[in-house]
């Protein structure tokens, strides 16, 4: 600023290239012989005042712009801070919900007993139903101690895993014995909230005919529970894909039948279990009629037929039953 004011004063009128010089030449034009040029000092003062005003205006605009940029910066920072606070609160507090339906003590024993000892006649009275697993060709066999194995991967929060455990427990109980079965219910904030079910977290299964491998990947709140073994992880990454299961890649519940069949997702509509406790469901499936029985026992019979292909029809009393053959017939 001082330079702009100082420069004109160092120039002689008429010799510079600035406005004062041009005006000076116009004032001496022969067309306007009587026109008196304004005094050089006055012209320089006006020009300087104009430049000062412009400079002040520019400075004011810069200051306003800087002020606006500060406000915008604060607004953007505020948005970022709000998001950060939300994420931090979520990460530090996490989900701490507890399963709505949990059977313990004598109720647990009753539920397990009712579910694992359904009479053959009851199962025979329900036609096999539900989705069937997809056949695999040339896939890696899965055995445990020389017995064909069924691999289950699921999670306690998952409502479709919750639904699928019922027919799984029923079907597998026809080939062997479960111990350590406990109960839980699916997430309260997911589809089919609080679906009452079992958990395989501490369950053991023994059978002369086949093995059962289970992985509960996450708990009711989605926190990590069990990790698959290396082999199980490879099977999950290799076969839990749409091209094999027909479902979304990486979906659960995932079932791998000794390299012969594969499926992901529940094989029946778990809506029928909504609002029911484990005991109510276990009681409902004691009779072949009713929505719950038709869905759960029908799906169990389909599973039984699949398992019979793994055990090569053993035990015969199971694999030749109406329940199993109705499932096999639908293949």
């Amino acid at each position, binding site marked *: 600023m001082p330079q702009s004011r100082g420069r004109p004063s160092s120039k002689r009128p008429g010799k510079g290239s600035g406005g004062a010089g041009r005006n000076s030449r116009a004032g001496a034009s022969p067309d306007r012989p009587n026109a008196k040029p304004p005094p050089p000092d006055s012209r320089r003062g006006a020009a300087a005042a104009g430049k000062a005003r412009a400079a002040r205006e520019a400075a004011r605009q810069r200051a306003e712009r800087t002020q*606006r940029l500060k406000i915008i910066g604060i607004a953007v920072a505020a*948005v970022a801070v709000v998001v950060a606070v939300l994420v931090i609160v979520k990460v530090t507090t996490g989900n701490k919900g507890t399963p709505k339906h949990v059977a313990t003590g004598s109720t647990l024993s009753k539920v397990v007993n009712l579910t694992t000892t359904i009479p053959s006649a009851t199962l025979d009275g329900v036609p096999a139903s539900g989705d069937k697993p997809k056949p695999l060709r040339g896939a890696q066999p899965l055995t445990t101690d020389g017995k064909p194995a069924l691999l289950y991967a699921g*999670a306690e929060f998952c*409502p479709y895993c919750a639904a699928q455990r019922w027919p799984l427990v029923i079907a597998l109980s026809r080939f062997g014995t479960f111990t350590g079965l406990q109960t839980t219910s699916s997430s309260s*904030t997911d589809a089919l909230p609080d679906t009452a079910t079992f958990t395989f977290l501490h369950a053991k299964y023994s059978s002369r005919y086949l093995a059962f491998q289970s992985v509960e990947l996450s708990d009711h*709140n989605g926190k990590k529970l069990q990790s698959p073994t290396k082999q199980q992880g490879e099977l999950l990454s290799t076969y839990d894909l749409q091209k094999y299961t027909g479902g*979304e890649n990486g979906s659960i519940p995932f079932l791998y039948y000794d390299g012969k069949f594969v499926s992901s997702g529940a094989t029946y509509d778990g809506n029928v279990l909504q609002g029911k406790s484990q005991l109510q469901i276990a009681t409902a499936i004691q009779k072949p009629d009713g929505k719950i029985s038709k869905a759960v026992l029908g799906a169990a019979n389909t599973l039984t037929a699949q398992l019979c292909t793994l055990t090569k029809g053993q035990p015969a009393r199971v694999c030749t039953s109406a329940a199993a053959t109705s499932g096999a017939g639908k293949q």
Partner: protein
Amino acid sequence: MNAAAVRAASLVLAVLGLGLSVYLTIEHYSSGTTLACPATSTVNCAKVTTSPESKILGIPVAVLGLLFFIAMVGLTLPVSWRARNAIVHQVRVASASAGIVFVLWLIYAELFRINAICLWCTGVHIVTFLLFCVVAYAAAYWGFGPADEPAQS
């Protein structure tokens, strides 16, 4: 950042957001009922896009996002940035601000009400935030006038 860069950045972001919104809208109307869960409960697009929070007054949030980005594409076209009418620039700032407030609500809903995150939705949130930054910067720099001159320092 000069005017041309602001114009280009805002338009690219708006078009990107529009693409994501189109995808989410198609997914909203075409996704079938799958009886399966993703292996992790945290990242679960289906849970988010089928939650009660996925609709506001019966209108799918995906559709609201689509409408938002259609408007933002129009408001970030070069002709809009050069508009002499201050209302165009005011509407742009107001829309971007409304968008970011809505995004904050959606993030809250995902984290605390739905308990799941949709990565596609997160993509939309990031784009909306960046768009808000660019539009706000332009408003601070050029006010509600046309952003068609080089920035002055």
